[in-house]
């Protein structure tokens, strides 16, 4: 019997801010104080609030400590664990500098609804017993002993769950296609090739609750008649791969995975395939090619994987978050899941909130919540209290939405209508300092580099689009270039072979739709309204504000600032490389950005 549990976040975010040191420190300090028999230290998955890490939660009180360092450990043990006094200075600080001691009271968490992330940050991902204690594998037992495969597919249809990888295709319907495909050999695949810039929800589920994916896949396999599965995970996620492999080993040891699961005639084997991290391998046909040992390139569909997939056999591919939702749906019913969300977008969705927002991290919210609630209530608003400008939703294939869309309910339909997509759920917030032309260029650079090159529209089209964007950002663009960019964007979207090319122009198209004036300013006025495009900004010294301290001249890397303490300091604009060092270094705000 342990009287207290100390949960230390072992997600990638907290690990990089030093949670391993905190964990080791805790263990040795507890031993020193003879508390190691009374207090259990548990390493969990991601709590979502990564920028406040390393995060430590003490139960039974549920006290939430953030930014805990190794040096804080002795005080934490002595004060909280021995004497029961909360260590105020390590608590989360909310509005008006008020300390918020409990998890549930922190605004970041209070609007969330955690289903896919339900166990993340709560259980030790390396202990199958903790998953079982939280009703783990109960849903699998339920389908194997009391449901027919058809029942399972029907329940999934009732839930209204749609593919969380980006496509948004109804999961139950997808399963029914594969279930109806004839053949004794079928596969199920988990797509864990998450590659969108700014997205890390799949990684966190893999790290924090790997058994939920295994259980989800097995339920799917039973429903569709598959006996073998692959988890395709990018090799850049070493911790996720380690935890997955350990989870598979433990499930096999318990006989929950393998031959005759739970004494039934259902058998299933599961493999982890490490991908080399090519963005295109998130495309299902490319992903299957990669598992088969070929170069990861998409092929035209049909035939769809449900008919002819891995090694020509009927195959079902779902993304990590989709699979992670399955056990809860079976355990708590499809109707329960469908009670959350909007008419056509049911349940919850995990978003990775990043960019110029105060609280970056993972949030799981019911569908239908507005962008404003996510960015301002949960995310705490814009960093440095600057003005909100846009939010990029759906990764590089998504679109940029504006202030006018802040009250848009988050659902597949509403986002698509506005020109963005749900995608995998990356959400990058931008403020007034972000140039939207530059943002479009950034995302296009990514997709252009990741294009596999198989089809001409994507290979050549994205390249030409990128060249045009560079030209505009450099101040050399013309209105004809803008027209050509738009035409190319439509062409690449319509004619590319796979989703990568079909969605690559989205950032360009949405910024053209909502921020055309910024493109025109770059072309007609040769200026960048946000002051972000290097080629279009000029630095000058405001002689009234200048105190002649000389810091700018001292720090200028190209020595283009002349002057001394008696005369004026002046920037030689021809020699200036516009690095912004003087702007950042000036203590008197005397450098003007024009």
């Amino acid at each position, binding site marked *: *019997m*342990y*009287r*207290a*549990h100390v*949960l230390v976040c072992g997600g990638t975010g907290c690990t990089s801010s030093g949670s391993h040191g905190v964990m080791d420190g805790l263990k040795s300090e507890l031993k020193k104080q003879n508390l190691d*028999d*009374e207090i*259990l230290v548990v390493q969990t998955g991601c709590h979502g609030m990564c920028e406040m890490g390393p995060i430590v939660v003490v*139960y*039974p*009180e*549920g006290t939430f400590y953030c930014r805990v360092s190794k040096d804080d450990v002795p005080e934490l043990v002595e004060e909280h*664990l*021995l*004497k*029961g*006094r909360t260590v105020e200075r390590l608590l989360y600080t909310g509005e008006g500098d008020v300390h918020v001691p409990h998890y549930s009271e922190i605004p970041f968490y209070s609007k969330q609804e955690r289903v896919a992330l339900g166990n993340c940050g*709560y*259980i030790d991902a390396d*202990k199958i*017993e*903790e998953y*079982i*204690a*939280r*009703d783990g*594998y*109960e849903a699998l*037992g*339920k389908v*194997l*002993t009391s449901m027919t495969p058809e029942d399972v597919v029907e329940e999934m249809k009732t839930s209204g769950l749609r593919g969380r990888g980006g496509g948004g295709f109804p999961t139950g319907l997808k399963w029914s296609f594969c279930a109806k495909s004839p053949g004794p050999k079928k596969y199920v695949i988990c797509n864990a090739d998450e590659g969108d810039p700014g997205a890390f929800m799949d990684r966190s589920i893999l790290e924090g609750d790997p058994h939920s994916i295994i259980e989800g896949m097995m339920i799917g396999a039973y429903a569709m008649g598959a006996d073998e599965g692959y988890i395709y995970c990018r090799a850049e996620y070493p911790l996720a791969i380690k935890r997955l492999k350990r989870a598979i080993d433990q499930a096999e*040891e*318990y*006989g*929950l995975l393998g031959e005759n699961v*739970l*004494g039934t005639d259902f058998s299933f084997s599961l493999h982890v395939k490490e991908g080399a991290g090519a963005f295109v391998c998130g495309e299902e046909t490319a992903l299957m090619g990669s598992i088969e040992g070929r170069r990861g390139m998409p092929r035209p569909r049909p035939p769809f994987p449900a008919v002819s997939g891995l090694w020509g056999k009927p195959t079902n591919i779902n993304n990590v978050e989709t699979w992670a939702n399955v056990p809860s749906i079976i355990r708590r019913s499809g109707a329960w899941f469908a009670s959350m969300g909007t008419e056509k977008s049911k349940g919850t969705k995990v978003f990775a909130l990043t960019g110029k927002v105060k609280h970056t991290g993972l949030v799981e919210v019911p569908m239908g919540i507005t962008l404003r609630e996510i960015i301002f209530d949960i995310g705490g608003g814009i960093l440095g209290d600057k003005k909100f400008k846009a939010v990029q939703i759906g990764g590089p294939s998504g679109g940029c939405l504006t202030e006018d869309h802040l009250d848009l309910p988050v659902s597949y339909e509403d986002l698509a209508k506005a020109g963005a997509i749900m995608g995998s759920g990356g959400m990058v917030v931008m403020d007034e300092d972000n140039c939207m032309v530059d943002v479009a260029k950034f995302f296009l650079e990514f997709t252009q580099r990741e294009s596999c090159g198989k089809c001409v529209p994507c290979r050549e089209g994205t390249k030409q689009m990128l060249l045009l964007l560079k030209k505009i950002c450099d101040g050399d663009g013309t209105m004809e270039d803008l027209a050509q960019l738009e035409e190319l964007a439509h062409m690449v979207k319509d004619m590319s072979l796979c989703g990568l090319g079909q969605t690559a122009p989205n950032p360009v198209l949405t910024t053209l739709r909502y921020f055309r004036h910024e493109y025109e300013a770059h072309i007609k006025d040769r200026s960048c309204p946000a002051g972000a495009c290097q080629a279009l900004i000029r630095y000058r010294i405001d002689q009234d504000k200048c105190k002649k301290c000389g810091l700018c001249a001292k720090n200028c890397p190209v020595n283009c600032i002349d002057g001394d303490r008696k005369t004026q300091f002046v920037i030689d604009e021809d020699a200036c490389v516009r690095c912004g060092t003087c702007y950042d270094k000036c203590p008197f705000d005397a450098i003007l950005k024009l």
Partner: protein
Amino acid sequence: MAKIKSLDELRRIKTSASDLTAARSSNAVKVIVGMGTCGIAAGAREVMDAVLKEIDKRGLKDVSVQTTGCIGMCQEEPLLDVIYPNKGRITYGRVTPEDVPRIVSEHVVNGRIVEDLVIARVDD
């Protein structure tokens, strides 16, 4: 570890595993031991050990044990509080390890207050 061969076996493992995460839920009977300097000096650690041992022995799942600092009744230490759902907070004073089995069996398990040891009570 043995293979799980049926849903019933899985549920048995769940029951035995549930105390792994039980301390992380909050719907439990709470036992709170005063562990200020005064409490520790008066022997609160031994009381705490006895509490944990007793809970273990009885296999109680839905009990959480917490510590608290000095509440100003130093002369009555060791102090042990029991918060039973809907029954207010009861404070026992000058608790010895020998008192613990009685408090646990009477109050924690059966909800009957051990009147002769009570020094304070706070109603809901």
